[in-house]
């Protein structure tokens, strides 16, 4: 039974590779089809290799405009949610105040609320307030739903921080601002960065809440959805692949920097 034994020994590796394939296969399809030259309007069947779409990513009218809008919203929503969420996380961990427990649970409620219900309710709220739907309503909505995630990520980090580190900084002549900048912030940074990345990803590809509250504004996910009903331009795959590559590049760069730092230390 050498085959069975081999399988037993390699089971974990095989399971891991299969799961990884399951995870990455859709990305591969996106990339492959960005080099397709479809017949007709739908990019669903492989025809022939072409780099046309890569040469002209903005060739479809409205696509790059929506992409730029989505990136802007994601940037500002990340900034807003990270700043607010970090402060909330510190408040929840560091300070004892009335209803702290209640606030702590309330922060998580938006995550539990079905998104589509939240979207419809937000629209009701905005309409009742007489707000004009567009960039600002989208941004407000995005900051709102990203907040819970940022708080969760930062809170976990702050909870594991030893308050004595800040006392040690104060003991070593660092005033409150210096203590925050030199000790608190650098140590909390990984949590804050994780929260920010999460917020960016969530905001960038949010469709449901955005669709309800955008008015006549069109973000990238809305553009994809809209065009999918009339035909899918290959450029969508190009944008998707590019985003994926940028993310991979960022991860690789940070790994290289980390490795180099560790080597210097050793």
């Amino acid at each position, binding site marked *: 039974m050498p085959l069975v034994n081999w399988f037993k020994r390699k089971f974990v590796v095989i399971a891991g590779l299969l799961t990884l394939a399951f995870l990455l296969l859709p990305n591969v399809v996106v990339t492959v089809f960005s080099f397709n030259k479809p017949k007709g309007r739908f990019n669903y069947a492989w025809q022939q290799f072409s780099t046309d779409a890569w040469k002209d990513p903005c060739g479809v009218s409205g696509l790059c405009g929506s992409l730029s809008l989505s990136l802007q919203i994601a940037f500002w929503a990340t900034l807003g949610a990270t700043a607010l969420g970090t402060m909330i996380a510190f408040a929840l961990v560091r300070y004892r105040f009335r209803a702290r427990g209640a606030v702590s649970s309330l922060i998580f409620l938006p995550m539990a609320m079905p998104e589509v219900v939240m979207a419809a309710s937000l629209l009701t709220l905005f309409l009742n307030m007489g707000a004009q739907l567009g960039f600002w309503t989208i941004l407000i909505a995005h900051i709102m739903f990203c907040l819970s995630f940022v708080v969760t990520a930062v809170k976990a980090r702050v909870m594991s921080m030893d308050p004595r*580190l800040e*006392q040690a*900084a*104060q*003991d*070593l002549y660092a*005033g409150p601002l210096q203590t925050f900048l030199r000790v608190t912030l650098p140590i909390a940074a990984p949590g804050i960065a994780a929260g920010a990345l999460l917020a960016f990803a969530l905001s960038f590809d949010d469709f449901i809440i955005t669709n309800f509250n955008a008015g006549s504004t069109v973000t990238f996910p809305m553009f994809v959805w809209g065009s999918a009903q009339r035909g899918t331009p290959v450029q969508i795959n190009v944008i998707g692949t590019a985003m994926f590559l940028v993310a991979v590049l960022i991860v690789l760069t940070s790994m290289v920097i980390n490795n180099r730092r560790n080597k210097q*230390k050793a």
Partner: protein
Amino acid sequence: MKTTTDAGGDVRLSGISKTYGSFTAVHPLDLTVPQGSFFALLGASGCGKTTTLRMIAGLEEPTSGTVHLGDQDVTALPPYKRPVNTVFQSYALFPHLDIFENVAFGLRRRGIKGVKQQVGDMLDLVQLGEQARKKPHQLSGGQQQRVAVARALINHPKVLLLDEPLGALDLKLRRQMQLELKRIQTEVGITFVHVTHDQEEAMTMADTVAVMNGGRVEQLGSPADLYENPRSTFVANFLGTSNLIEAEVDSRSGEDIVLKAGDGKLVLPEARCAAPTTTGGKVLVGIRPEKISLTHADDAGGIPEGRNRITGTIAATSFIGVSTQYVVDSAVCPEFEVYVQNVDRDSRLAPGAEVVLHWSPAHTFGFDAAQSLLAGTTGSAGLDEEAAL
């Protein structure tokens, strides 16, 4: 390395106290730590020693009283404005900075330029010059501890506060670091205030020890003074082992008090008694186990006159190499502990043997009988100190 010896480095605590809600961690306390001394605050967890230390550092605000450093009243100053540095219990090294930057932290915050030389010298003093570019988690416990000391000392504080700095180290390393810290203190001449629950550590390192119990200082003195002349059962039991006998004041002869314990008489110099001695009053008499001689009852005639004597039966013996420890049952004290050096071992001193315990009256100490015999023995520790913070 430059030593800071500017005058007025005394730490003076006047009427300082700390309460948390209804819990009093430190009762109003007056304490003076002389400049340049190695001072230990000794006590079980929850006795208020760490709170006292943190009030000196400025990390805890006193409920009442003042803290003076030399002539300066620092009570209202935040920690970052006090010329005092702390070595924290868990070291509290900055995990995101390397050893060099950890040590340079205090200098940089005060805007001092060209710290390289100073940090290098300091790291050499604690023998960590090679490790400057490592992160704290890459060092062993003992090395981390030395970084914490270097990080504090480089600022030439008027006072260095040490909060159980050796608690996380194993026994052998702890011994080594005790000597190391003592060496550094002698070398730099800075006042050290050291908090510990380890009586041996306090006695080995400190010039002066303040024994704390329940938020109060029980007794203050040199290690030898505290050991030889405890003024309460807590001190007698917390520092080493003591045999305590309940006795009654019988009469006086000159400088001495004659006490009645069971059928026998004991003599106690009046100067060594921390209780009022009215005839008929009760006192507790104490004697350290190593001060006692053990003689077999058959040889009792050879014991010189003028020594305090008690008769008993050996209940147990244990051989420790340098000495033998005996537990003796007697009428006045059920489990009398006696340590005898193994010079000439008397083979008759086995369990069941009738013996006479005798010692010089000068080694006897006495105090008020109205206190627990067991105060300060292990297991009678109060609240956890952390819980009080």
